[in-house]
């Protein structure tokens, strides 16, 4: 049985288990006995025991099936392959898989025993698999249904199982993050085995070209990431230079000055900006803004490259405005009205109140919002890739083309790559830097925001 029909059968069993459990509980209640829990709790309990164990088995099975099967296959391979390197064995195994499923290209008679074995194995395991899962489901249903009695504490048992399920889900989220971190750390460590960490962090020349053949000349590659850090910093600074004042002032306008009518359409309109895909911003930057900047620059006699940090930074700034404004708007609104009243009551004007009472009171929250926006800017890729170019120039001139950490990660990994070449591994080292920087920024921002919340709650 294939997966989809198996899952449909399981769902039917689950629904049946629910109804059976609930009806049995109702029948008990109708005999005049008081139930410990509601009939629906009994139904849910039966359903959970019907569905969960097979689900677990399904997951474990699919995790380990491949390994077990391959292990069994190795024994069927010809002697000389078995004696060979692990890479050869891997290759032979995948050939066997292809032949068995009929997609293999080369007929390899020496692999035939293994192919036969695999086909036999697959038909047997598939039956075993289906049988085991259905048996487990039915067993769970039957046992739990029998346990349904007026004294069974179904509610607390269901609650407990729900808690475990929720715990498992959050566990998966945390473990995945840790897994990603571990893999990035490992690959970065491999990279630092080939390129010194000092050169990476402080080197000023970035040209990650690696010789494709050992005898190719003059292309050992250099991995000094400083131009990327500077490029990222430059573009983020330009973006924040736009986004912070504009975002903050529009937040102040919306929360302190605008009438509720204006507010009711200006706020959603601003938030639409946040919904535009970054790739759209990207070609807006590359095709509209960059040429305009170039034109203006040339009319002033300035030398502007057609892809400039300024174009990317400006557009990124526009993209981040709603981010800053809606977060700041929230913190400004959270400043208690009583503080404003106190200030007005002393004869302060609206702008005095905003400047001297509202903003200072909201400042920690605003700082938090800005920090989150910065980490957003640092992580942004698309706009920069399209509008600022790929040239790793070490420059602070916003009219030059620069590149950023994220863009380089993309270019390093696009196309066919060897997984252990420094060029590929460099992407992981850059990723690690990016991860650490945004982690620190987010952490600081959250701390600040939290501190602010405590002050007024």
């Amino acid at each position, binding site marked *: 049985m294939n997966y989809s029909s198996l899952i449909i059968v399981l769902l039917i069993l689950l629904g049946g288990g629910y109804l059976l459990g609930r009806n049995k509980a109702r029948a008990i209640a109708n005999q005049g006995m008081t139930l410990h829990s509601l009939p629906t709790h009994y139904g849910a309990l039966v359903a959970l025991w019907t569905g969960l164990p097979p689900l677990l088995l399904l997951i474990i099975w699919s995790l380990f099936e491949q390994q077990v099967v391959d292990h069994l296959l190795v024994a069927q391979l010809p002697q000389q392959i078995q004696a060979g390197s692990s890479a050869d064995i891997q290759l032979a195994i995948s050939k066997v898989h292809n032949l068995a499923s009929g997609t293999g290209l080369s007929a390899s008679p020496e692999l035939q025993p293994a192919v036969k074995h695999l086909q036999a194995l697959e038909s047997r395991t598939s039956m075993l698999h289906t049988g085991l899962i259905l048996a487990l489901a039915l067993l769970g249903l039957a046992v739990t249904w029998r346990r349904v009695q007026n004294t069974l504490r179904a509610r607390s048992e269901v609650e407990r199982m729900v808690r475990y399920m929720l715990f498992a889900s959050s566990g998966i989220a945390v473990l995945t993050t840790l897994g990603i971190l571990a893999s990035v750390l490992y690959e970065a460590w491999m990279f630092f085995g080939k390129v010194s960490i000092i050169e990476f962090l402080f080197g000023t020349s970035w040209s990650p070209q690696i010789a494709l053949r050992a005898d190719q000349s003059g292309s050992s590659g250099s991995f000094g990431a400083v131009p990327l850090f500077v490029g990222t910093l430059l573009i983020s600074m330009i973006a924040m230079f736009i986004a912070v004042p504009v975002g903050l002032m529009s937040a102040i306008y919306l929360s302190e000055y605008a009438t509720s009518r204006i507010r009711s359409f200006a706020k959603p309109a601003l938030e639409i900006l946040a919904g535009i895909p970054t790739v759209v911003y990207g070609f807006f930057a590359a095709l509209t803004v960059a040429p305009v900047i170039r034109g203006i620059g040339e009319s002033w006699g300035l030398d502007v490259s057609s892809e400039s940090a300024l174009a990317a930074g400006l557009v990124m700034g526009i993209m981040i405005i709603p981010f800053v404004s809606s977060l700041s708007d929230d913190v400004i609104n959270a400043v208690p009205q009583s503080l*404003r*009243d106190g200030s007005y009551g*002393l*004869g302060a004007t609206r702008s005095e109140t905003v400047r001297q009472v509202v903003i200072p009171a909201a400042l920690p929250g605003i700082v938090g919002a800005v920090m989150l926006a910065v980490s957003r800017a640092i992580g942004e890729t698309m706009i920069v890739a399209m509008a600022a170019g790929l040239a790793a120039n070490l420059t602070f001139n916003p009219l030059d083309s620069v590149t950023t950490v994220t863009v380089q990660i993309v270019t390093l990994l696009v196309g066919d790559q060897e997984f252990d070449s420094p060029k590929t591994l460099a992407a992981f080292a850059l990723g690690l830097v990016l991860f650490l920087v945004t982690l620190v920024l987010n952490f600081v921002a959250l701390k600040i925001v939290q501190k602010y919340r405590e002050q007024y709650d």
Partner: protein
Amino acid sequence: MSIIENHQTHGAPFSDSPKLTARNVGVYYGDKQAIFDVSLDIGANEVIALIGPSGCGKSTFLRCLNRMNDTIDICRVTGDIELDKENIYDPKMDVVPLRARVGMVFQKPNPFPKSIYDNIAYGPRIHGLAHSRVELDEIVEKSLQRAGLWSEVKDRLHAPGTGLSGGQQQRLCIARTIAVDPEVILMDEPCSALDPIATAKIEELIDELRENYTIAIVTHSMQQAARVSQRTAYFHLGQLIEVNPTDQVFTTPEHALTEAYITGRFG
């Protein structure tokens, strides 16, 4: 749709030496009328207590007297209110000096998230009352002394005002109001968030402040009205029912509604 048709305020709503005079004041929140045709004088150097059941419009009326209602979009005020014979709703009237002359203390202490010193210095700074640091220091010290807070905070003037106790915070807010040297102080239930000891201190303070200021105080505590005020005004569903000397209101109320309220039959 006032409750009592053709109602005339009972007692003596007018004063011989009025500081603030309100005539035929009506207040609307959108379409809803909250105050109906209220005429009342607040005499110079007197403490007048505004009492009445919750929602009867005490705060609304009080907030008319320094145009705090301007900060509420939907609020509209009709009638005349004069401060020293000057119409405060005149379009030529500037609310900034008005609110400096008619200060306000709120129900919940609302110190700014600044130091104690800066809380007091806030008003004088925005109105340019001090010409030097020394003068500002003097204003801060004098205001804190008047509010009876100086001895408690003189060693920590630069600590945050939000770190004080509730009662100290409220006295800080009173000191902050005094610092701009107002003529009238409006207080909206200034003690409702405080314990009896802090309340007693503030009541003592109000009694002392009466020498120099005119005070209107909203309160839910009839004992408090009796202790601090010379006259009491009773509001009911947006109408001013009765105004009389305080001891008379609490011993021999003129109007049946007033009597019902002070004997605790509603409110």
